[in-house]
């Protein structure tokens, strides 16, 4: 279908050789001369006023090089938006969750640093805590943040109009409430950071991050130093899943300790700290009210969601919106009213996570299944009647260009045998479908675009510079693949310099699924510009027009006369002899509505493209134990264009593991008085190799987006989301009960089966 040489091929990743040899360096692997060990003193109370902090005993301990408290921070506060700057990097007034930062220590070794933490004497005056968002809104005790009445941190209101009128016209209306507790990222690599100030007083930092430029700006602000003096370095990253998108207090504390001691400082989080003191997914209580006509078309929907935001804002406005946006992209709605409330509680901070609002999405799909059941329509037909179509606008006025939602449904249905199985499976054996859509980015102002530089070396190989970061998903390979394709080189001829704020231009970061669409596209444009320069020189040598030339396999040749060729290396050298270097730049800025804002104006073009996904799941439930055995999962996603099927399949499979197998069956946090009682891998149940379904069918659907690089959009996210929905639908189908509390753990399943038996007996 295409004549690409490298793009679209199952190319193994360029970073995997170093990784299989154990040579890839992660932050914790770094050692710098004179490096100190840093540790954080955390609050043991969920809500308390800080009366006094005495660091004298800690400072006196042999081997302690520095102790920092809120007094050293000059009162700087962090928040993603100007209106959400509610978090001091080290607390000075009060603590708001168990784990809040109150001091930092740098010492010669870990043992000394830990001893010093115990010697820091913090006097607290305990305040009444609140752990439940509904209670927090009604609470008359001291507010968690005094500027936020009723502890409401963020309120997103979206209203297309005509909602009440359309409910009156509806043939059938359902209102249901769905709940889900918090989940966590559990990146394989616990968070770690190394910071130092170099000989030019530049702050140099290595840490896992979702975007180096998103770390450098806040650090530049906090330390009041120019942006060019903050150098976030590239380092191998052990997963992010949305949890490493923004700066954390530990970044600031580590840099502050490095500044005070004039030495490099390394802080490695324990697994428990990674769970408690980075970010978590929001717990949610979501009520969907949906009105349909006789055929099942959604005429009106009203959704109200209360999200447990924890102690600080984090990415609150975004996280309050994305669960809704994903559903408004996936499904057409005649009219809709959304009220999302993110509420402060005295619990750890919640941020963005790969499956945005499992209770929200699974609730919406469960309700569609209930309505379909009432109308006598099957779940597939119900979705086809409401699915997003190309050329439409979403409820919040984003134009949807490429869209193959229906094709993902048809292909997944065919492959899974849904039609043959629906309604015909034996008892406790079920099948379910979920569909979803995610965005490729969102309006980010001056940081919404990415820029790439390419330079040729005299040996005919090229260096590509890009701000895109690889969290483990394969972004490095994506950039190399694109550059090699465009420049006519082999992947091993490309040297990638990326994710380093000293050498690369601003980039939106590798969250919101934007890396390929924006960062990859910037590299493509830079490479095309560079190729033009090569062609201009080659055309003169070959005595042809530049437009007749193509570049492949290290050669430039005439398309219709391949014998007429010259090596790229030779072209570069001829160019240099003529006093011209071969380099180029290229940038891409998505045409989005810059006036769109999460709270103030949630309307307008969100991003340029949306991906669409369908997941169908078949399960067997053991009615005696409530255990779910997943037999087969079929995932189909409209990725725009499959740049690398090998990597795409890996994203689909990983999405099914996190969104479905873990997210819908086993993963959730438990609490006692604000303390997370399962912060480690021993108690928080992540899917293992033996848990995974024996059969996963990955189907890549291509809609060739007119604006994406080679037509590509994003890979895997709408599978992570629809997998959760598919899993929940399949379990509900197996036990004959529409579930409303997620994840679907054996206790909930057994209770549902028993209640159903009782009801059936009454009838």
């Amino acid at each position, binding site marked *: 279908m295409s004549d690409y040489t*490298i793009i679209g*091929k*199952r*190319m*193994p*990743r*360029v*970073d*995997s*050789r*170093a*990784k*299989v*040899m*154990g*040579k*890839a360096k*992660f932050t914790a*692997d770094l*050692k710098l001369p004179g490096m100190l060990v840093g540790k954080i003193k955390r609050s043991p109370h969920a809500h308390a006023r800080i009366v006094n902090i005495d660091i004298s005993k800690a400072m006196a301990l042999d081997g302690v090089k520095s102790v920092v408290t809120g007094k050293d921070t000059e009162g700087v506060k962090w928040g993603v938006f100007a209106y959400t700057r509610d978090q001091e990097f080290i607390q000075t007034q009060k603590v708001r969750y168990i784990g809040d930062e109150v001091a930092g220590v740098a010492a010669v070794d870990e043992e000394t640093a830990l001893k010093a933490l115990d010697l820091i004497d913090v006097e607290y005056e305990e305040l009444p805590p609140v752990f439940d968002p509904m209670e927090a809104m009604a609470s008359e005790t001291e507010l968690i943040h005094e500027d936020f009445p009723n502890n409401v941190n963020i309120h997103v209101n979206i209203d297309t109009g005509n909602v009440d009128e359309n409910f009156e016209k509806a043939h059938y209306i359902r209102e249901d409430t769905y709940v889900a507790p918090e989940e966590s990222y559990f*990146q*394989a*690599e*616990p968070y770690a950071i190394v910071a130092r100030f170099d000989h030019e007083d530049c702050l140099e930092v290595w840490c896992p991050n979702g975007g180096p430029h998103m770390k450098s700006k806040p650090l530049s602000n906090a330390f009041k130093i120019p942006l060019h003096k903050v150098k976030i370095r*590239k380092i*191998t*990253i*052990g*997963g992010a*899943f949305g949890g490493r998108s923004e700066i954390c207090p530990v970044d600031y504390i580590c840099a502050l300790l490095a500044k005070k001691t004039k030495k490099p400082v390394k802080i490695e989080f324990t*697994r428990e700290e990674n769970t408690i003191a980075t970010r978590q997914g929001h717990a949610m209580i979501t009520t969907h009210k949906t009105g349909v006509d006789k055929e099942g078309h959604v005429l009106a929907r009203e959704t109200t969601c209360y999200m447990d935001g924890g102690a600080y804002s984090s990415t609150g406005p975004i996280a309050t919106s994305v669960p809704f946006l994903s559903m408004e992209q996936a499904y057409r709605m005649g009219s809709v009213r959304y009220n999302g409330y993110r509420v402060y509680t005295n619990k750890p901070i919640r941020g963005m996570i790969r499956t945005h609002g499992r209770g929200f999405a699974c609730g919406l799909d469960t309700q569609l299944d209930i309505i379909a059941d009432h109308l006598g329509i099957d779940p597939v037909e119900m979705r086809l009647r409401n699915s997003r179509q190309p050329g439409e606008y979403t409820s919040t006025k984003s134009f949807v260009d490429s869209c193959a939602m229906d094709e993902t449904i048809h292909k997944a249905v065919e492959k899974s045998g849904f039609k043959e199985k629906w309604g015909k499976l034996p008892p406790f054996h079920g099948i379910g479908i979920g569909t979803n859509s995610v965005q490729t980015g969102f309006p980010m102002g001056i940081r919404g675009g990415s820029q790439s530089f390419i330079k040729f070396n005299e040996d005919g190989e090229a260096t590509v510079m890009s701000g895109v970061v690889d969290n483990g*998903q394969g972004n*490095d*390979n994506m950039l190399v693949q694109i550059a090699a394709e465009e420049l006519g080189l082999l992947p*091993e001829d*490309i*040297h*990638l*310099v990326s994710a*380093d704020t000293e050498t690369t231009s601003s980039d939106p970061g590798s969250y919101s699924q934007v890396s390929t669409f924006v960062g990859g596209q910037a590299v493509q444009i830079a490479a095309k510009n560079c190729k033009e320069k090569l062609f201009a020189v080659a055309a003169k040598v070959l005595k042809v027009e530049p437009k007749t030339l193509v570049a492949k396999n290290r050669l430039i040749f005439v398309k219709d006369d391949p014998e007429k060729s010259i090596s790229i290396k030779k072209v570069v050298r001829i160019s240099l002899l003529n006093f011209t270097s071969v380099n180029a730049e290229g940038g891409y800025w998505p045409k989005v509505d810059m006036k769109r804002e999460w709270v103030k104006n949630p309307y307008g073009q969100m991003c340029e493209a949306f991906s669409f996904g369908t997941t169908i799941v078949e399960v067997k439930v053991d009615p005696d134990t409530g255990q779910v055995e997943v037999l087969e999962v079929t995932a189909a996603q409209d990725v725009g264009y499959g740049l690398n099927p*090998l990597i795409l*399949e*890996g994203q689909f*499979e*990983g*999405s*099914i*593991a*996190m969104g479905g*197998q873990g997210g819908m069956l086993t993963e959730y946090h438990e609490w006692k008085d604000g303390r997370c009682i399962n912060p*480690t*891998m*021993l108690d928080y149940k*992540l*899917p*293992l*190799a*033996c848990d*995974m379904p024996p059969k*996963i069918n990955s189907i890549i659907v291509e809609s060739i987006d007119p604006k994406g690089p080679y037509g590509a959009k994003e890979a895997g996210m709408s599978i992570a989301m629809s997998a959760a929905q598919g899993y929940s639908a399949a379990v509900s189908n197996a036990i004959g009960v529409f579930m409303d509390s997620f994840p679907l753990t054996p206790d909930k399943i057994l209770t549902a089966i028993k209640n159903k038996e009782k009801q059936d007996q009454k009838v």
Partner: protein
Amino acid sequence: MEKILITLHINDKPCEVMVYPNDTLLEVLRDELDLTGSKESCGEGVCGSCTIQMDGKPVRSCLTLAMEAQGTRIKTVEGLANEEELSDLQQSFIDHGAVQCGFCTPGMLISADALLNENPRPDKKTIRKALAGNICRCTGYAKIIEAVAHTNNPQESCPDCITGSKTGSKPNKIQGE
């Protein structure tokens, strides 16, 4: 507490190293011997990121004292390749796309290598069981299981079983490695 000189046999080489009696093998490998391929992820023997082999058996190095490892043959991820020549298992991981973030990869490879040494052509059920002690958060395990299954048993039907002939399997220059 005083440090003691011990000898460890790691990747077919004897290493003399000073350790505290309470140092874990993982701490000694990473901090004293610069063998940072073995990772710490959970620190309590659950995740498998620190898996090494002792006398051919997969062992959690975060729960093993360095002193206990004296007199055993230790193999870490750094010992899988013969200099720059990858083992078939390592190459299979690359070719089958079994590596994403790569943090669990060393432990996963060591567990799989131990399995293949005992049972060169295991079925998928056996592999799933053998790797159940290694947590991967990225891949969903499908490609890892396939990579192990096909290491000594390449399948014609598998598009990724064309070892070595594909682009990208050669050393590539990526900053940060």
